[in-house]
């Protein structure tokens, strides 16, 4: 993967960059094709799958996972990892719910949720970037700590939908022109972050860091600050996801999104973001989330034993990284041949 990754960040020639872009856009294309095939087969078996309600359900189910995947992919692109996202969602959903139930307005509530998420992200980011502690270990630690804090606050209590302001619940279940709000929010964040990463020089630096932190540092990239920002964004989005979780499900106990960290990372990796950093896009990550969710729904609709879902997710992830690897090797070989000719 390193061969393709380096070139993506520091393009040698225009044609090489075009080729690399093509290959990785082909990845997003192949996701879309897989998705289309899946939906086609399922809809053929049960037309209800493509009913308005069916599509709405899938979009709603995807929205939160995709939002987390977008944040996570920013971190993964810098060759780091954020395992604490599931715990952050749980904490934010509960704390925000608690405050809203005690009479806070929707706007301060949402702000609080995002702020809590940002604080968690900042903590992770500081530990990883300033103290240079391995990301996996730090975020595993904060996963436990945040989860513990959340359970401590909740203490077996539950937030009921009836206690929440109707405005928030409308956010989770309402729609504009037939399209629910949740996926629109996710879409907006995905496009904004995707555009930033692609079009801004500072955005490209995230890829440079992931390809080779050492090289990026030598090239004058503020590595620590960018990594910190990546965690901050991931934390904020996890906080927002927590608020949306509350809005969507209404009833929350302490363990919302428990264990989702691996699901999010699966979505990111299936979406073509290399776990070794430097490669991939937030669009791919969001598509990965959409694919995983659709598989889950399709299995139920096709009346396949739901126990297969997890195994299929795992197999798909392995397939995705293997294909990526093989492709990257091919591209690297092609590039080498071209540069020899050029």
């Amino acid at each position, binding site marked *: 993967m390193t061969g393709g990754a380096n070139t993506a960040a520091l393009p040698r020639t225009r044609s090489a960059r075009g080729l690399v872009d093509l290959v990785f856009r082909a990845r997003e294309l192949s996701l879309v094709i897989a998705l289309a095939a899946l939906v086609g087969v399922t809809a053929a078996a049960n037309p209800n799958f493509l009913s308005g309600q069916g599509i709405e359900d899938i979009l709603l189910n995807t929205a939160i996972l995709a939002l987390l995947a977008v944040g996570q992919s920013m971190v993964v692109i810098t060759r780091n990892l954020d395992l604490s996202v599931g715990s952050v969602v749980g904490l934010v959903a509960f704390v925000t719910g608690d405050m809203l139930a005690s009479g806070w307005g929707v706007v301060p509530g949402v702000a609080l949720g995002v702020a809590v998420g940002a604080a968690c992200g900042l903590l992770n980011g500081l530990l990883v970037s300033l103290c240079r502690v391995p990301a996996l270990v730090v975020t595993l630690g904060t996963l436990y700590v945040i989860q513990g804090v959340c359970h401590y606050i909740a203490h077996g209590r539950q937030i009921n939908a009836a206690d929440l302001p109707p405005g928030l619940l409308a956010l989770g279940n309402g729609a504009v022109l037939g399209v629910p709000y949740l996926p629109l929010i996710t879409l907006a964040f995905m496009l904004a972050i995707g555009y930033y990463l692609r079009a801004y020089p500072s955005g490209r630096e995230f890829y440079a860091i992931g390809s080779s932190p050492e090289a990026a540092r030598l090239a004058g990239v503020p590595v620590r600050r960018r990594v910190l920002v990546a965690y901050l964004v991931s934390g904020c989005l996890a906080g927002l996801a927590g608020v949306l979780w509350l809005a969507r499900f209404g009833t929350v106990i302490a363990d919302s999104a428990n264990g989702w960290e691996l699901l999010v990372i699966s979505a990111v990796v299936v979406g073509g973001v290399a776990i070794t950093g430097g490669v991939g896009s937030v669009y791919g990550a969001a598509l990965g989330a959409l694919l995983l969710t659709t598989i889950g729904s399709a299995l139920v609709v096709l009346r396949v034993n739901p126990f297969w879902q997890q195994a299929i997710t*795992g197999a798909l992830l392995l397939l995705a990284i293997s294909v990526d690897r093989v492709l990257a090797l091919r591209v690297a070989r092609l590039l080498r041949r071209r540069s020899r000719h050029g």
Partner: protein
Amino acid sequence: MGRVLRWDVLVGALLVAVFAGGSLATPGFATVSNLSFALGDLGEIALIALAMTLLVVAAEVDLSVASVLGLSSALVGALWDAGLAIETIVPLVVLVGAACGLVNGLLVTRLGLPSLAVTIGTLALYRGLAYVVLGDKAVAQFPPQYTALAVDDVPGTFVPYPVALFVLLAVITGVALHATGFGRSLYAIGAQEQAAFFAGIRVKRIKLLLFVLSGTVAAFAGVVFTLRYGSARADNGLGIELAVIAAVLLGGVDFDGGKGTLGGVIAGVLLIGLLRNLLMLNDVSTEIQSVVTGLLLIVSVLTPRLLALVRSRRPVLKGSS
């Protein structure tokens, strides 16, 4: 000062402190029955941690261990339900575990994929297969003579059989890691894979072996787990990969490879287990236990780095003392 401030020594000292403090302040802690149970409760995590130490020293990781444990447990249940004898089932599921490890190892060594990504994938895959094998069923009613093996103490001691097995394997692993060329080659691979390769170490083959070992041990731990609880389920051991990794890192094994000792890991496993036991005996709630585990983990990676920082800033004269 280098030797005194080594992290694994610190963990060992902390362990002694926790034990001493617990014995003095908490009634019921330093009793034979409690310690025997607390040790038995650590059995599977400790077993898996042995193989995981070797992997992490070689700068790889296996997140799929808990899923292999679950798959093994589910298979034990399904095969027992199908009327096979335990004596047949055990070697079969251990072989399946070895195969699981082989898949991990091949993907990592042949395709050159990062082990983190591969084993996150197989974590989902193997756990999924466990559910496919046994669904949501629970199989119980194992014969007492076998379940006793996983619970009872070795006659005349307060050491449960799984712990005795662990001690035996720990000695073998310790010798292999710290006193053989094989062990040295693991550190070489972890520190600088390419250099190790050029030095003639068969990096790929060794890594493959480590993954197979990890799968095998995890499957065996699945058998122990199933018999200890007398209940085979697909969700057995869900999430203990994190506990295993926490113990290994707490024991001072560097996640980037090339550093750490088995003694440190064993101290790490015991520290997490005894601390948990102590907290529970003092009615400290689950949530605080989870916070303590998390903080320990962060401190365990943070401290050595801060120490190194302090050391590098000290004047040379003091630093050499």
